[in-house]
């Protein structure tokens, strides 16, 4: 037990130590050293995770570590403790694994930035919080990580803080997340109120043994809904998704690590972690499925017309997250987890690839000014190609297996949602290959200056790309249809029989075929439109009709501004200018009234002693008669 505690502490605290070193000494250590420290810190965590993974997959037992009592609330005790089980270790594997790769990548990518030590300290802090989020033994420890990663996201989106647009994006991300956080808190309150505990294992015990009354079921439903709102905020689902595309203001490694591979999957982690709660709230599950499906479709349609390479990937991320929630909505947690993992591989690879491109073009992100990079950047091209094939669901790449399972699950539960998911998948294939064609094929459309400097990125950038591409290609092997290592590994977590193992019957094969065909169709359209016909998206002013609506993201941001931000600002102004002044005048009014009474009363004091005496005698008469005659 002592050993486990130490391991867990090493796991959590190494990135934190890296953060501290970089914060306090980073500047004097120099850029490369601080980068190495940051990377090594995460790599150590990764190694510890491997040890733990080995231990857990061999023993199958979860490790529970309690450090000390944190918050006392009358009927629930909240410890600062860790729970290392199959789910958390799995999550840790790709958090620290991909985290290490991205740290490595950043050493080269951020080398020109004067605040590189700060960047690494923030990244380390992020990893620290992410690990806390994943291994917390109760919801409140999860919440530390949950808000902590939000903070790091804020810091990293606004990393180039001299640009106020970036700061706005960072602020927006933080506040949108906080809306979700409130939901999560409320969910926690209801759970705490109903079950008197927030500890996962105790919660599970209680829920599995409790006697179900309508009130309790109702509470669970509301709690699940609130928790889902929290997940919406963190995992960028409708209606709280608008921050994620804006979050691309941050450096590209950040987008890869936080806004694609790890942080945004926290919502899925939380739902999976609390699967026993969501299983009891079937109505909420339906809501989750519907929202997931709609998100995936809406984000995919917006992704069709974006011209910023990172924006395309961002909307793709939102869309893929939607698909994961679709799976969660059907109770197919292991399917969602599977997609989380494959998505982490290929999306991280895509983002890093796009980062490599941007790096090569000295900060150019507009795809209209790219093209023909295939020759100059072969490694980047091939790795991105593999990942694009994976995300498009081309057979035998990782995305094929995971996406197919989601669609299959959807098909078994709800045909309309299956159709929506499939359309989103086709669109995914289309816009990914639109991206590929616009970026890597045909002639270069940028300036001569840029063309002159085109070159493949250094090995620190390409090595992570290659590793991720390999994972993206073969990651699907962990959960082959019919023989799923992942399902077995995760089985102890779920109360229901892990998924409904699909028999690979005729339906399944035909579904697979439809999916493959859909993916190929998307690729084909992209090929025709952007390779054969040599189209280049029009410049901003010339966009019209439906594509203008799409290009402007359905005007959702504007709608939110008009619906929420503007009224609050108006109220603020109104309160400040009228209510505050009014209340103040009211208080001064008391003083004014007193003053006025005094001024009027002054006249009574005429100074005429005769009058005073007269009044005095009258008063005396009144008092005497009251005392003696009023009885």
């Amino acid at each position, binding site marked *: 037990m002592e050993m486990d505690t130490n391991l867990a502490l090493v796991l959590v605290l190494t990135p934190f130590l890296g953060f501290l070193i970089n914060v306090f000494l980073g500047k004097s250590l120099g850029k490369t050293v601080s980068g190495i420290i940051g990377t090594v810190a995460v790599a150590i965590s990764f190694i510890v995770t491997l040890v733990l993974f080995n231990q857990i997959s061999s023993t199958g037992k979860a490790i529970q570590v309690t450090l000390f009592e944190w918050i006392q609330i009358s009927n629930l005790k909240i410890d600062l403790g860790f729970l290392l089980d199959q789910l958390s270790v799995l999550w840790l594997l790709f958090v620290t694994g991909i985290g290490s790769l991205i740290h490595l990548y950043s050493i080269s990518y951020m080398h020109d930035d004067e605040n590189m030590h700060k960047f690494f300290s923030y990244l380390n802090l992020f990893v620290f919080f992410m690990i806390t989020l994943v291994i917390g033994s109760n919801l409140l420890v999860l919440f530390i990580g949950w808000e902590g990663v939000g903070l790091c996201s804020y810091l990293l989106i606004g990393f180039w803080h001299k640009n106020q647009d970036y700061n706005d994006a960072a602020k927006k991300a933080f506040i949108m997340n906080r809306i979700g956080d409130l939901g999560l808190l409320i969910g926690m309150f209801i759970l705490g109120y109903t079950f008197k505990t927030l500890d996962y294992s105790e919660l599970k015990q209680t829920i599995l043994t409790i006697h179900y009354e309508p009130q309790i079921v109702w509470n669970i439903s509301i709690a699940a809904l609130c928790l889902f709102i929290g997940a919406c905020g963190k995992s960028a689902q409708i209606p709280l998704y608008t921050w994620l595309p804006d979050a691309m203001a941050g450096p590209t490694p950040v987008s890869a690590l936080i806004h694609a591979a790890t942080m945004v999957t926290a919502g899925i982690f939380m739902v999976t972690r609390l699967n026993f709660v969501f299983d009891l709230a079937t109505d909420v599950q339906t809501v989750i499925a519907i929202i997931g499906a709609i998100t995936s479709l809406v984000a995919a349609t917006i992704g069709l017309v974006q011209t910023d390479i990172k924006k395309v990937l961002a909307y793709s991320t939102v869309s893929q997250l939607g698909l994961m929630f679709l799976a969660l909505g059907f109770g197919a947690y292991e399917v969602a987890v599977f997609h989380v993992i494959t998505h982490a591989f290929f999306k991280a690879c895509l983002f890093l690839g796009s980062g490599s491109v941007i790096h090569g073009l000295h900060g150019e992100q507009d795809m209209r000014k790219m093209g023909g990079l295939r020759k100059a950047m072969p490694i980047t091209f091939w790795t991105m190609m593999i990942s694009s094939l994976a995300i498009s669901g081309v057979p035998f790449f990782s995305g094929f297996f995971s996406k197919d399972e989601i669609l299959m699950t959807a098909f078994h539960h709800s045909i309309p949602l299956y159709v929506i998911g499939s359309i989103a998948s086709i669109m995914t294939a289309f816009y990914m290959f639109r991206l590929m064609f616009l970026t890597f094929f045909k002639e270069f459309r940028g300036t001569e200056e840029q063309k002159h400097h085109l070159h493949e990125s250094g090995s620190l950038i390409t090595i992570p790309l290659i590793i991720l591409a390999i994972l993206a290609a073969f990651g699907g092997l962990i959960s082959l249809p019919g023989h799923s290592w992942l399902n077995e590994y995760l089985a102890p977590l779920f109360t229901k029989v892990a998924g409904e193992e699909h028999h690979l019957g005729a339906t399944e094969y035909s579904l697979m075929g439809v999916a493959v065909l859909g993916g190929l169709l998307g690729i084909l359209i992209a090929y025709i439109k952007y390779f054969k016909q040599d189209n280049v998206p029009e410049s901003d002013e010339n966009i019209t009709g439906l594509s203008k609506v799409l290009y402007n993201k359905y005007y959702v941001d504007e709608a939110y501004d008009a619906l929420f931000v503007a009224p609050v600002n108006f109220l603020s102004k109104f309160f400040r200018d009228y209510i505050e002044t009014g209340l103040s005048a009211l208080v001064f009014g008391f003083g004014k009234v007193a003053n006025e009474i005094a001024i009027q009363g002054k006249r009574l004091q005429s100074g005429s002693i*005769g009058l005073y005496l*007269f009044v005095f*005698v009258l008063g005396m*008469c009144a008092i*005497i*008669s009251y005392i*003696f*005659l009023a009885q």
Partner: protein
Amino acid sequence: MIHIPDFAHATTVQVLFCFLAFITVITAFLTIFSRNPIHSAIYLVICFFSIAGHYLLLNAQFLAIVHIIVYSGAIMILFLFTIMLMNLNERHQVHRPRITRLGAIVSFCLIVIVLITIFINSKPIVGDYDSTGEDFQSIKVLGKILLNEYMVPFEFASILLLVAMIGTVLLSKKEKLNK
């Protein structure tokens, strides 16, 4: 009810009381209504003497004597000196507006009515008054009480008088013009 003395069978004491009371009231009235302040002062002296008579009637010799000394001797002399110092006479009679008079009469009537009503309404006082025969008001007894029980107030009275004296001197001292 007001007990009206039966004059036919009045004792000496009763007659004396009526006489003194009559003088007291009349001179008090005259004090107020005299136009000349000097006359007022003279009437007031007579009034005070009659009150001293009442004190004697009530067998409070000590007070009667003190009263004559303090009021008739000291206070009234002070009044007379002041009046003479100011050289006040009828010429200084100030004009009294009608409203003042009306007010005065109204409030006078009012307070008389109120007090009389209270007096009538209150419980009748027993006709028999107990008399223990014990000496309670001779100079000897009063002196003991005053200098034992009321020692401290007595001393304070002296301080009061001293302070009043100093105050009077200060107040009436002619201030030099322009400081």
